[in-house]
């Protein structure tokens, strides 16, 4: 197993997301199994694993959407559920389709913003930032998946949070969109934010992530910097194939 070896010991003292022996079972499926890792600020952490590896489940557990079977996840040292104004600390995009199709993009964002006392001016700003200002009054139901991903990213950015989590944000995007997201991730991390970005494609990570956490069948497989992986396996693609060889599962990601 490759481990973080350079610099101060993994910057654990400043980690903003911490998982302690996180386990989640759905009936017979062990979706996440005794998963422990932490995410430090200031760079993009890639969260990588084949479909069905438990990435989405882990993110839902961090956000308190699903209750862990055992173990715990902390954000800024506290359970997510206990954050009073979570949008100002954490922004998350889990599923771009998780929107009410009958609402306009502007109203969708304003509904979310209101809950954390964020005003309409900020809504207009993020719509501008993600390039949806022109369709702000259009119903979300008519949006393409790429536009919905942008809308989800806008929602995550609303509270100007220091921590961002994105679950496979490039799925369904055209090359332009992929590039846009990549640049956005990098600039968010360059501003000193913590970015946790999941993907089942290593190629996606190579260009954005500095550290990579690899999971397979709900378990931690490796936690390393991109530099370490490359020095050891030549290319990230090779590293990924070698490390996940035993854990590829057929199925659809959700």
């Amino acid at each position, binding site marked *: 197993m490759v481990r973080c070896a350079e610099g101060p010991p993994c910057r654990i003292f400043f980690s903003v997301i911490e998982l302690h022996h996180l386990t989640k079972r759905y009936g017979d499926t062990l979706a996440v199994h005794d998963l422990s890792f932490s995410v430090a600020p200031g760079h993009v952490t890639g969260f990588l694993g084949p479909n069905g590896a438990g990435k989405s489940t882990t993110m*839902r557990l961090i*956000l*308190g*959407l*699903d*209750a862990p079977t055992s173990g715990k996840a902390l954000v800024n040292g506290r359970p*997510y*559920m206990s*954050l*009073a*104004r*979570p*949008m100002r600390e954490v922004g*998350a995009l*889990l*599923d771009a*389709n*998780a*929107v*009410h*199709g*009958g*609402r*306009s993009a502007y*109203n*969708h964002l*304003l*509904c*979310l913003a*209101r*809950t*954390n*006392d964020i005003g309409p001016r900020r809504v207009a700003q993020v719509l501008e930032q993600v390039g949806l200002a022109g369709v702000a009054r259009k119903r979300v139901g008519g949006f393409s998946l790429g536009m919905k991903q942008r809308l989800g990213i806008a*929602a995550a950015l609303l509270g100007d949070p220091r921590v961002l989590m994105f679950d496979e944000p490039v799925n369904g995007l055209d090359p332009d969109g992929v590039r846009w997201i990549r640049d956005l991730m990098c600039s968010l991390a360059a501003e000193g934010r913590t970015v946790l970005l999941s993907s089942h494609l290593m190629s996606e990570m190579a260009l954005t992530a500095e550290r990579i956490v690899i999971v397979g069948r709900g378990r931690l497989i490796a936690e390393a910097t991109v530099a370490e992986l490359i020095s050891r396996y030549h290319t990230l693609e090779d590293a990924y194939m070698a490390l996940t060889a035993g854990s590829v599962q057929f199925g659809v990601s959700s």
Partner: protein
Amino acid sequence: MMRAVVASELLKLRSVTTTYRAIGVAALMVVLGAVWTFYVGTMADERGSIRAAAPEQGFLPLLQTSLALLGVLAITSELATGMVRTSLVVVPRRGVLFAAKAGVVGAVTFGGAVTILLTTYATSRLIAGDRLLGFNQSSLAADLPMLLASGLSVTVLALVGLGLGCATRSTAAGIVSVVSLLFVLPGIATYLPPPWNTRVASFMLPNLVPQIAGDQLSRRLGDGLLPPWAALATLIFYAAVTLGAAFYLFKRRDA
């Protein structure tokens, strides 16, 4: 926190067209009430007087179903689309989200129902003029308990719809449950052998309204068992039990 989430829930309702459609259908009561009054009015002109049902009572089921649909959709539209996860990420305290939803559905449906009931009441009395139609001889003060009880029944049904929609996670199941409470169960109760028909019917949701106002259930069933305060308590109990059960599930289940 609570105030902000209430503002958000109110905007959620205001920003989808289904809300306006549901309220539009509910407001048809005013039109139907006017047409009904006009129709029985012309009959009264021929016969001198008539005993017709009050439109705000006759068309109450329309108001109840359309606004209960609003309650069902307030939660199922989120559960069906996954929007509830987006909502819970920004409001992780489920109690706060659920209470805000219930509060907004309760307030909007009560306000809407009472407005529509009073408008129906006023326009039908205006159209009736001084004809004797059977329903227009009493004063507003005398009719007010019935009007308010009707409004409250709409709110209770909307909250029951919210609760059942939340528990079943399905718009269809939520609607079917509301319709059962409103039409199917009371219908079955009527055909039980006496005295069980009246006894059971006294506890049926739509029959609580006349009991709160101190009226008969119907000519067939006669007086209900419940005094006004007990009928009012039973009505509130319906909402409390369904919301309580729904919240228990909402809090425990994975989103």
